[in-house]
């Protein structure tokens, strides 16, 4: 995996796998979930909230979801970002 890529979580019930790539321009969010139609916007908002907190303006995020709640999406996003920062240290 590239130095500017990090991921966290699993594709299993109530969980989500978040993959972040910071080697990009602008924010791009891709959702792979059977709940996309109902909760896609909600999932995007959860990820965007974490990105905004960390002032990240360039990131491609892939959300592979199987029914994760907000707190899980945010936590997995945070950990994925931390893992990139750990590699860059």
């Amino acid at each position, binding site marked *: 995996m590239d130095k500017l890529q990090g991921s*966290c979580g699993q594709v299993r019930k109530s*969980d989500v796998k978040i993959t972040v790539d910071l080697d990009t321009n602008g924010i791009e969010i891709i959702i792979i979930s059977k709940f996309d139609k109902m909760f896609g916007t909600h999932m995007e908002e959860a990820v965007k909230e974490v990105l905004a907190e960390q002032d990240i303006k360039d990131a491609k995020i892939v959300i592979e979801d199987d029914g994760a709640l907000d707190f*899980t999406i945010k936590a997995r996003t945070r*950990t994925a970002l931390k893992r990139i920062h750990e590699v860059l240290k």
Partner: protein
Amino acid sequence: MKKLIRSMLFCPANNPKLYYTAPVYNPDCIIFDLEDSIEVSEKDAARDLLVEAIKSLDFGNIEIFVRVNSVTTPYFEDDIKAIVPAGVRNIRLPMCQTKEDVIKLDKLINSIEVEYDIEIGSTKIQVGIETPKGVLNASEIAGASNRVIGLSFGAEDYTASLGIDRTKEGKELLFARNMIVNVAGMYDIAATDTVWADINDSDGFVEEIKAIKALGFNSKSCIHPSQIDILHDALKPTEEQIKKAMVILDAVKNADVENGGVIQVDGKMVDVPVITKAKKIMSLYEKMMKWEK
């Protein structure tokens, strides 16, 4: 009135589903685990998930504990620095062996409480006694900080340290259990017994609860939701105990013996220690009734 704590249900902190399914089983406590059940590569993920869950979810009147990684690991400080600001107020410190372990945690918590303007002393510690050294040092460990609210016994690591098998009968655990209960009594703190690992043997589980209750334990760690109701039932005072306690306390009302002296109730001597026991039984019973409502 102290909160009623009988069951402490272990949940690995990296499983999102457990954060909202575990409360459904109504344990007195949930203990989210950052230690043994979490792979080294997932320590960061479990910690972040726990922090986010604590900030977002309302667990009602279920007490939340977190078992952090031990003081000798590289994860210990990160665990404490993440969970205390997030709102965790009960920490189980595993593999505690000396008073210095508690002092190290106490100092770290103190600095975080100051930094984040959290009430000083509001974060409590339950120490995990899981080694022969920890058992022998239990007294100085319990007395090392005012934050210590209980001792919990870990039989798997204890028997592993001694190089012996853990049996269902549990004779090999008797010394450690006696020591823990005795120290807990000395400091007026809780004594929590080890897990019962065989979830399919509920008869064995009930026998063990009866045995540890007789020794003086008032709570137990659980590894499966099916153990909670069994534990709560088995820890209840018996009808006979309740009846006897009520009769004693009723007789005491009409006699001036609470500070000394003796009366006879049903032909048996009743003095201060007997009254104290009767009060404890009624207090436990009342708490259980209140909780079950």
